[in-house]
């Protein structure tokens, strides 16, 4: 099969086959990071822009390494939303970056739906690296990939997601991915962080950690954002930990060969006990390794269909964008001498005005 999505905005909308295809592709990429020369030439000459409006070490470096291992040039832009408030809008920033002809735009943004806004520009493939409380699709893929390495097919497996479900994009993407692949998902957390609407997703809802963990094959811990306490989602970190910290004792409820995932960064002693985080069941560092493979796969799948998509677009709507125009701008002389009206439709006549006045003066 081929992957036909132009953008990678979320797990929502991906079919089971598409998910499995991306996972298989990612699994094929895993080996590259084990080589001595960790680089393939696939995306030579392409530029990937990582536009991060939120601080991130793991995801940003993972995307950067993935791009570099595919021989693409990776540019990181850390923007703070405060500076955006002073001036440029997100769309203007994106328009400017797209004018530099990247092969893909990777965006992390605190507002849900920000990548969708850029995707509507449709200047280049947009990859969601986490938007607000909405989705973090590559994180879900690397989580599922890690679970599959340990447990095989996730269908029929029981997987618990523990913590702040309400605000977690990681939870949303994982719930969608895991349920699409046939896993049974249990959500565990205090009721303030566990919306009642969750039950519509076909998942179980638990407010008791031990009851929720009974017999699970895998446990996905979510990062607790400390500022939630200020807004009365729970009284104190201590009290949260008393109810929902994954301890060695709580772990006894799960299957004996359970694995434990965490998207990082961890709050040790709040949502996860160090003995568990560093213990034999933890696959947290494998997640990080798989993250590179997943991002390589997504970058590969989205950017190697780009030229095709651009060409099709220029035929259908007559707007010469992307590749074609870049080619011409490298040889303006040839273009000015011999305009080829037969090949041009619509607005792509625009280079002419830049050249004609000079010639008129000369004559």
């Amino acid at each position: 099969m081929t992957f036909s999505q132009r953008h990678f905005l979320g797990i929502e909308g991906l079919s089971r086959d598409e998910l499995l295809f991306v996972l298989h592709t990612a699994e094929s990429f895993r080996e590259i990071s084990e080589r001595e020369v960790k680089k393939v030439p696939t995306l030579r000459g392409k530029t990937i822009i990582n536009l991060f409006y939120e601080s991130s070490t793991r995801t940003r470096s993972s995307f950067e390494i993935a791009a570099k291992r595919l021989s693409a040039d990776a540019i990181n832009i850390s923007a703070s939303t405060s500076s955006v408030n002073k001036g440029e809008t997100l769309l203007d920033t994106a328009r400017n970056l797209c004018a530099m002809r990247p092969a893909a735009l990777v965006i992390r943004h605190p507002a849900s739906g920000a990548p969708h806004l850029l995707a509507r520009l449709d200047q280049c493939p947009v990859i969601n690296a986490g938007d607000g409380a909405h989705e973090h699709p590559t994180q879900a893929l690397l989580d599922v990939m890690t679970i599959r390495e340990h447990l095989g097919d996730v269908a029929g497996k029981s997987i618990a997601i523990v913590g702040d479900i309400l605000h977690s994009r990681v939870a949303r993407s994982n719930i969608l991915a895991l349920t699409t692949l046939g896993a049974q998902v249990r959500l565990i957390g205090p009721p303030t962080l566990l919306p009642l609407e969750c039950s519509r997703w076909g998942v179980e809802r638990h407010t008791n950690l031990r009851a929720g963990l009974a017999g699970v094959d895998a446990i996905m811990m979510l990062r607790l954002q400390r500022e939630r306490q200020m807004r009365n989602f729970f009284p104190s970190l201590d009290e949260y930990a008393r109810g929902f910290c994954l301890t060695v004792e709580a772990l006894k409820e799960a299957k004996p060969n359970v694995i434990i995932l965490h998207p990082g960064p961890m709050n040790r002693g709040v949502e996860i006990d160090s003995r568990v985080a560093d213990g034999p069941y933890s696959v947290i560092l494998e997640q990080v390794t798989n993250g590179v493979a997943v991002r390589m796969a997504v970058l590969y799948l989205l950017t190697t269909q780009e030229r095709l998509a651009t060409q099709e677009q220029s035929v259908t709507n007559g707007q010469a964008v992307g590749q074609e125009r870049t080619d011409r701008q490298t040889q303006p002389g040839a273009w000015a001498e011999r305009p080829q009206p037969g090949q041009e439709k619509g607005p792509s006549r625009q280079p002419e005005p830049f050249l004609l006045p000079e010639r008129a003066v000369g004559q």
Partner: protein
Amino acid sequence: MPQAAQRIVLDSAAISRALTRIAHEILERNQGGDQLALVGIHTRGVDLSVRLADKIAAVEGVRPQCGAIDITLYRDDVGRTRTQPEVHGTSIPFAVDTMRIVLVDDVLYTGRTVRAAMDALVDFGRPKSIQLAVLVDRGHRELPIRPDYVGKNIPTSYEERVSVCLVEHDGQDRVVIE
């Protein structure tokens, strides 16, 4: 309406004989199976490399190392093809350095696949030598590449298609020109 004539150019027995001969030639050229490894190019090259390894084992008593290589990420036409090629796994489960490596593929045509495979291989290390074994050489090279072992030379025109069918994937062994 009859389709463009299908012509069987190698049947199951002929394929087996060709592989047996290639196995002997490999052993002869490399003076035995020491430091020898076979690397098949996805998809049917991998099957052929396994068969060659079996035949070499039958002659020498020692089975050479086998690997599989996917050239997708090394193609020179990334993003230019109508359909996006699927990425399969590459697996080179041995140290490449100092090995004599025989690349194995089903059909040799333009030579671009072999170029990509050599690029992929040297990313794993510095082999002592790289040789090339193909079941069919149909001509029309676009790169300066020459096979070391050939099952059968089959002159073809550009319009013709050479299909290699193997039991492992297609249920039967045969080479067809359409």
